[in-house]
């Protein structure tokens, strides 16, 4: 006798793979959309996550931007995993909304900003910058952001403030354990932080910043190696002594405080003379200060860049 058993899974219960992936995309975008909903209408569209209107910037390069796919799937964001493909797959581990950024330390007006306040602080600009990673690859990224100097001004730094320390969000429950001494910290000299090229980015390709790129707000310093650009920042602290950064703690002989792009000073494990632009086959020569020497070299006049690497 043949006894028919119904299959364990009904055909109607099997999810179409396209739908399944669409759901994943939806979950990834939901965070930034929730954030967009909280923003003023002029700066962000709640339905699409688009930012705007955006002012063009004379600091933008005319080089062709790296594809959005590469920019959003090839990331060093160790809190979300140490493989470059990990951050884009682990976006659920960081909720970019609601978000508060605190500016404190040697300032006359310590303040906390909601991300919506930060977007009202200054008109948003598109800044198309070269990004050079210490590992020997580079991209061209159309960031959206505003000068860090604007935020610093709002907090009124005291005369004794010499450096800015940046602290990234860290949640032990959902993020990577070990590898680096968390939370991730970075630092800039005050004049570097006030330099017009230095921005806080809140978007790329005209959209709200994806989680894997450091949502909702990150630092971009285009003449320094990429790791200087702290992601998902929660605290900015003005201090009088040079802060110790996460990478300096991890490898003092390999990572210095300045970390200016410099083809003449090699990383102990990699030559820094050349780089591979993502999407290109042949390597290209790395430029001093990542091609921003005209704007920034004067800040380091007289300094031994081999010693202050």
């Amino acid at each position, binding site marked *: 006798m043949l006894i028919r058993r119904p299959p364990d899974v009904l055909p109607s219960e099997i999810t179409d793979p396209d739908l399944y992936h669409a759901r994943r995309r939806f979950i990834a975008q939901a965070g930034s959309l929730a954030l967009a909903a909280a923003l003023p209408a002029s700066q962000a569209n709640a339905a699409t996550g688009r930012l705007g209107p955006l002012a063009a910037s004379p600091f933008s390069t005319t080089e062709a931007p*790296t*594809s959005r*796919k*590469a920019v959003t*799937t*090839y990331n060093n964001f*160790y809190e979300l995993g*140490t493989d*470059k*493909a990990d951050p884009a797959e682990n976006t659920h581990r960081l909720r970019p909304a609601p978000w508060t950024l605190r500016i404190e330390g040697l300032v006359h007006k310590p303040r906390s900003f909601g991300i919506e306040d930060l977007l009202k602080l200054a008109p948003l600009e598109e800044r198309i910058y070269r990004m050079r990673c210490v*590992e020997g*690859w580079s991209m061209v990224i159309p960031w959206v952001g505003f000068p860090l100097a604007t935020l610093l001004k709002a907090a009124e730094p005291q005369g004794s403030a010499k450096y800015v320390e940046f602290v990234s969000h860290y949640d032990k429950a959902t993020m990577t354990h070990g*590898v*680096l001494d968390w939370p991730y910290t970075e630092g800039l000299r005050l004049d570097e932080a006030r330099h017009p090229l230095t921005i806080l980015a809140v978007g790329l390709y005209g959209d709200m910043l994806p989680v894997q790129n450091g949502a909702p707000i990150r630092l971009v310093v285009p003449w320094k190696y990429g790791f200087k650009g702290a992601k998902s920042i929660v605290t900015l602290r003005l201090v009088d002594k040079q802060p110790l950064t996460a990478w300096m703690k*991890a*490898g003092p002989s390999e990572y210095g405080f300045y970390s200016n792009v410099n083809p003449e000073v*090699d990383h*102990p*494990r*990699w*030559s820094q*003379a*050349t780089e*591979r632009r*993502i*999407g290109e*086959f*042949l*390597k290209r020569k790395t430029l001093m200060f990542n091609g921003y020497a005209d704007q920034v070299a004067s800040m380091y006049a007289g300094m031994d860049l081999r010693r202050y690497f």
Partner: protein
Amino acid sequence: MTPSNPQLSGIKSALFLACLLPAFLLWRRFDLDALGANPIEAITRNTGEWTLRFLLITLAVTPLRKLTGWHWIVRLRRMLGLFAFAYGVAHLLTYLWLDQFFDWPAIARDILKRPFITVGFAALVLMTPLAVTSNNFAIRKLGGRRWQALHRAVYAIAILGCVHFWWLVKKDVTEPLIYSLILAVLLGLRAWWRELERRKQIAGGYLPQAPRLNSKVIRIFAK
């Protein structure tokens, strides 16, 4: 369970195809443009990892044989070792061609100045004589003893391979640690078995000459 000769040929053919699988899968990912934003880095990484994996698989043959009694598997070892070499050559070619595009001064600087490249390059150079002598003619020509002494270099090669991986990673050493631990077990088992063998010889009084000589001497005196 010792397979017959035709069975062994079948096993060898299947293993040969299995060893080609990683290369095929890599080619397919390349073809589908599924290697990510930095395909050259992905190819370098993938071929390097398979070199190390095949080295460890090759080194697992002897322990597996001792633990299971499947003595015939030693006849698969040559192919596994040669595949380790083949993936190693692919890894080196990826670096020389795709990564550096034959920029010889830069390559020479890398080999001399970057410890992880020095070590990796040394491992591949050391593998070459082993690959060249992986045939019956070379074994006859060298004699079993010398051939075996030469092929013990594989222990050094595997260690260099793990060091190469360890020094390359920026901070997260989890993966090189896993490879190193497996290698430590494979080499540790050998050391342990060798020690057991030594103890057995001592305990069993297996010292061939002295006792025999004694009895002879006694006999002489008895006459």
